């Protein structure tokens, strides 16, 4: 699940971080124009996720998600809504560039709060999209863009843009397919260092975001994880801008206050 949210946020972040580089070249310009439409922080989401494993078994979950940025610190709070047995379970991810991240966990069944160190290693376990996350967390000038060409997807001409970190230690890369007329991202393909396709993220059902004139959000994000042979279908049931989010909104209940 965290995997899906990461993909979603990564796609958004990947796009937004490079906004300042607009006009540097064709690929960069296309990329930035596409990113400009997306909301990436200070927002509230209601997500419904179906995860299908390699044997075709489906597990359904839903989450309430808050995302905010306080200075350099990025916080994500996920509260389980479904299934009933997990309702109220809360996880807060805190990420600070250059520092060890923190994962805080609240389990309502026993009222316990526990913390986990969010190392790169355990973040890698969360999902293969971590590579993009690492790219997006850098200065946009550290990213390299390349226009690979055009292709027709669903009757619409799209640009294919390759994005990778300038100092790409593990040589993984992503290819974004962007509609040439609306500049909406259709899908993101991630390749590993050997050039093998590890995942495809499809973004669709774009809707305008209330309160923002030029913001559109994909309401459906489907991910095919080839490595883990897993399919994730995430539907955004609700998205709202939350400029009012404060640090207190990212606190867990006191252990004592819970039975």
């Amino acid at each position: 699940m965290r995997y899906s949210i990461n993909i979603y946020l990564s796609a958004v972040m990947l796009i937004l971080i490079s906004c300042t580089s607009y006009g540097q070249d064709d690929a960069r310009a296309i990329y930035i124009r596409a990113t400009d439409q997306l909301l990436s922080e200070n927002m509230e989401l209601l997500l419904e996720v179906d995860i299908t494993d390699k044997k075709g078994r489906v597990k359904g979950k839903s989450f309430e998600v808050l995302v905010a940025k306080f200075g350099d610190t990025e916080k994500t709070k996920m509260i389980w809504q479904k299934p009933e047995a997990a309702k109220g379970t809360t996880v807060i991810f805190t990420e600070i560039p250059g520092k060890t991240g923190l994962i805080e966990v609240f389990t309502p069944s026993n009222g316990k709060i526990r913390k986990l160190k969010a190392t790169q290693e355990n973040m890698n376990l969360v999902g293969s999209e971590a590579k993009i996350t690492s790219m997006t967390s850098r200065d946009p000038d550290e990213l390299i863009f390349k226009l690979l060409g055009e292709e027709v997807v669903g009757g619409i001409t799209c640009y294919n843009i390759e994005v990778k970190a300038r100092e790409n230690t593990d040589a993984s890369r992503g290819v974004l397919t962007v509609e040439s007329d609306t500049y909406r991202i259709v899908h993101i393909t991630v390749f590993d260092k050997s050039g093998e396709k590890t995942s495809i993220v499809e973004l669709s059902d774009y809707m305008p975001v209330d309160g923002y004139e030029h913001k559109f959000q994909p309401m459906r994000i489907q991910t095919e994880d080839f490595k883990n042979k897993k399919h994730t279908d995430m539907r955004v049931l609700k998205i709202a801008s939350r400029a009012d989010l404060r640090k207190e909104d990212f606190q867990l209940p006191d252990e004592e206050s819970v039975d």
Partner: protein
Amino acid sequence: MILVMLQAKDVVNHSTLTRLKDLAQEFDNIDGIDRCISPFDAQDISVEDGFILMEPLLDSIPQGVAAYKALKSRIIDNSMASRFFFVDDFTLVSLILVKDSKYQDKLLIDEINRTIKIHPGPEEVLMGGLPIVRYSISENIRTDMYILLPIALLLMVFMLYTSFKEWKGVFMPFIVVIMSMIISFGIMALLGWQISLITVLLPIMLIAIANDYGIHMIARYQEHVKRSPEPSMVQICRQIYLDLKRPIIITGLTTIGGILGLLTHTMIPAAQLGLLASIGIAFAIMLSIWFLPAMLSYFKPVIKVNTSRKNTNPAFADRLLIHFSKLVTRRPRQVVLVSVLVAAIGAAGLFFVRVDTNIEGYFSGKSDIGRAITQVNDKLGGSQFISILFTGDVLSPAVLNRMDDYETELLADPSVGSVSSPVTLIKELSKGFYHPDEKGYNQIPNTANEVYQFIEIFTMGGNEDAVEQFIDYNYENSRLLVSLTDGSNSEGKRLINKMQELTKEDPNVKFIAGSFIDRIELADMVVSGQIKSLVLAMCVVFVLLSLVFKSARAGILSVVPLSVAILLLFGLMGFFGIALDIATALLSSIMIGVGIDYTIHFLWRFRKERSMGHDHKEAAYITLTTTGRGIIFNALSVILGFLALTISNFTPLRFFGALVVISISTCLVSALILIPSIVIIFKPKFLEKRIQK
């Protein structure tokens, strides 16, 4: 599941663990391996300053004696690591490879072997698990074919030459065998049947049996040459054809009838073997009756072939036959009495016969696979499993507590190596939420929601595979996995009964399953197949002999030596602890089919001698000293053919070879001693023909 084990004096050291890690990483990338579960996946879960420390047990490979000691102590404390990967004395560490069931064993194991070669080390690498056993069986079948076939052919050539002392006597039966093998294997290929552990017996059976008819022809040809002062080869060939046509057809039919008894086996390869061997033997009979005398007539007779002083074997056979003749003519009652006694002793052994279809028992303890099996069973709790499947609210504390009770109860059983269940994992997870002095630490939670939330948090870190070992994707089914240190059928049956008894009141237990259960069913098939084929073969023999001699008494008489041989055979198996398995289950059909021939040849000649006016004792004497020679050569041919099996790679085939030797020898001795004694005592009417003048 495949187990790859590194064995050394002490495996907790930097180089061994580095090698293990490299192997685990490489195995994970091999197509056909769903996942590689290694000690590096084991999580050390604890609470420290409010932090859940959910760290890999082997995050980094330690160096130095103190670090090794600390790691060993952490391994002992971690129930997942100490149960599944390391043995108590740290002489062995294992990797568990979960195989994609659709992937071919051979391709995968070749790739695993290649990977192991890329990462050499001083540790011995052993591999175990069902796919490895299956692979070893198919590889050893191939080796067996390459080795046993030429050895059996050489033994046959040796036996034929030493028996007849002329190359005609070697060449003729040999060509019959080769041609019948071509026919049988051709049909096998046409039908698209594969060579299995059972059908690997086909060439050996044909080498042993298909030349029997030719042997009688050659023996009779030499008998005529001896008797005739100026023998004409055409006349001799015509005469041997007339003499032996009927007994050969009859013995051939009884052999085919006996072997066709295998068709009643529920095991398909046994039925295939029965059909293919019967076709080969039928073809050999035709060749022996028509082709062999025709070919023989082109040669010149070799006179006095057996008079050479250097020829010790025929002289020995002749001497032996004279002894037998004297024995049966002087002490027929004592012979019958001793035979009854032997049969009675054999019957007592029947009660000790056990059935075992454990394929792990196919290999000797000295072979690589045999040693791997021993290590897995002795040190890692065994590689054969029985699962108790639970369904419903499997995360509820009530179900988990019952599982815990079953686990405790089963672990107390000496045949149980290890028991793993969601309880092990959930208790381990509780260590991440509770302090050691807190209630709840290393315990099953009080609510299903808490269990669910433990698992949810645990899987967030990418540990879904660890959970799926015990609980299915949607937490609707779970299993308790019991490994067996003793994979024998009797222990397995006992444990299954115990599990059934233990869980009979449990509404969440769906069923008890596992490949082990299939094996038990196979064992039942072996027993029922054995009984059915035995009864059918006996009936065929009885009916055929009754028809041939036009007397039911002939049928009964022919069954006597077979019964003695069967009782002795199974008695010996019982006394020596040789199990009835998929190979030895074929014994009775083959023994009846082949063993009855000697009785038929004796009775046929005896009746002829009686018709020539000899009294019973004289007829028995003449029959034994003439036809007896062919019977001995025939039996020797079968014995030597099957003797090759005693060097097989498979334990059941080695036992099978030895038991065929014993049973055929019993049939031979019965036909040469017991049957003559009975006919001398009881003087059955069906052997009385009109006296020829």
